[in-house]
């Protein structure tokens, strides 16, 4: 279980997050949605101790982020940020292999090798494993980074826009893979997602942020409604049901308002 209690954050005097309190149960996919500047990435950074918490507290199960040693946290939670500038020249398998570092500290065992292979396979990277990162396309590199986080094999995985740079096929595969890991291995994913329809189709719960506050929490059916979306995005959006999932037709304005 993730407990976020009264977290506020300011950057250069500007409030980014104001008194965010959230409880997320263990297991499943939580999608973080909201307009630009809502504070989604900041919240994820705070959860993953990449940014120091200014006020409030965050804990994963019994581990308080501010107090638990960073090596311990590395075995419990992993994060993939949005802006990854990797200048190091590593092969795909080297990169993914470093995801195991918190567990083996430089001496990989057979279990580490297996988990790396699994992660490569899951992201369809096995044929590319000896390629250097700078020889990959943007989408392939993004999959390699996700594979690294998967290889870290933590209970909690925080992903900031993991679908960046991915084509339709790989985006769908990625979400299916996350869903499988959540269902079969009991992992918990917190995913910042831009495309609300991916959230609606794959997330177990959606948290909507706006102006640094939690606007709403609920299932996709509860959040992806015209009234709710109007609140979150200040936009009139038609929602239709397809195969049991709500779909937001956000690309076009509703006929009545034209």
């Amino acid at each position: 279980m993730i407990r976020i209690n009264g977290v506020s954050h300011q950057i250069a005097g500007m409030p980014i997050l104001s008194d965010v309190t959230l409880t997320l149960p263990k297991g499943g996919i939580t999608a973080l949605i909201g307009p630009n500047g809502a504070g989604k990435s900041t919240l994820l950074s705070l959860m993953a101790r990449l940014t120091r918490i200014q006020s409030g507290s965050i804990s994963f199960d019994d581990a308080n982020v501010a107090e638990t040693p960073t090596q311990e946290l590395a075995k419990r939670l992993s994060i993939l940020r949005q802006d990854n500038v990797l200048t190091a020249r590593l092969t795909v398998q080297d990169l993914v292999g470093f995801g195991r570092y918190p567990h083996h500290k430089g001496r990989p065992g057979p279990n580490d090798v297996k988990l790396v292979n699994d992660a490569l396979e899951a992201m369809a990277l096995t044929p590319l494993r000896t390629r250097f990162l700078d020889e990959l396309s943007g989408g392939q590199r993004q999959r390699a980074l996700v594979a690294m986080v998967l290889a870290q094999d933590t209970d909690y995985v925080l992903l900031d826009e993991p679908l960046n740079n991915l084509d339709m096929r790989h985006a769908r595969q990625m979400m299916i893979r996350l869903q499988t890991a959540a269902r079969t291995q009991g992992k918990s994913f917190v995913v910042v997602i831009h495309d609300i329809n991916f959230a609606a189709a794959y997330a177990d719960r959606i948290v909507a942020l706006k102006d640094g506050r939690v606007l709403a929490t609920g299932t996709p059916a509860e959040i992806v409604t015209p009234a709710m979306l109007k609140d979150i995005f200040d936009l009139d959006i038609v929602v239709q049901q397809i195969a049991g999932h709500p779909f937001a037709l956000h690309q076009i304005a509703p006929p009545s308002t034209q």
Partner: protein
Amino acid sequence: MKSLSLHMLLALAAIVAMAMLSLTIGAADMSISAVWRGQGDDTLILMASRVPRTLAIILTGISMAISGLIFQMLTRNKFVEPATAGTTESAGLGLLVAVFFLPSAPLIVKMTVAAVFAIAGTVLFLRILDRLPVHEPLLVPLVGLMLGGVIGAVGTFFAYQADLLQYLGIWTTGEFSGVLRGRYEILWITGILAALGYVFADRFSIMGMGKDVSVTLGLNYRGVMWVGLLIVSIISAVVVVTVGTIPFLGLIVPNIVSRMMGDNLRAAVPWAASLGAGLLLLCDILGRVVRAPYEIPIGTIFGVIGSAVFLYLLLGRQSHAIR
């Protein structure tokens, strides 16, 4: 992997061959066979001058290459090495200060002062680095070179005031001709530091992926940063005090190795070490042969070769370093 270790063996054999060659070249007339027959003069030359010199070259080559490799990981920039970051010039300034205030102190004390200055200069460089835009990798060496120039200007000013101008030359051109038994042993410190670099190889590789990744993987980012910084600074200080500057060695060797086999330091460190030692041995042999019996300092020879290779790296078509 098997072919890799074969290559490694070949590389080591080449280094041993060059080391042997380096032992037999020199101004004084000496032959290995005479040493073998037990002639005292020849043995003395071998043990007091030739062996220390060859060892010094190998140690310097290894440690400079590794310090460049580590520095590039810490800064995540392929154009950084002690001489493009103000570290070398800081060490030189420290040496000047030590010579002025403690003229009769032993070499190890002067080296310590130089190391303290080198550390301070490197910290300053890293602080400046934090303030540079990340997406402009070429700005980093530019700023570092300028910083080196500034520290050099301060050094010149100090030397001018203290009447030590002739000491300026000490760190500007690397030279092995003054290396004798009793004056090179301090270089073993660099060997120890280079080995420490290998122990920390995984952690430096992770640092090369950036702060966020490091924290995610539970690395003590600040701690490892300091270890790297100390290794780089102290190696620079020791080399500056004993040998002088060998520009671009720490830059081109890691770049070649990175191109060959990537930035996983566990694999890259041994290669950087052998390439560094081999290149330096080769340049030293050249410097002693080109105008025998006179000698051209290795810093000059390497300056010509190193800058030419650096230019090639910069302008080479598939320069991944620039990205």
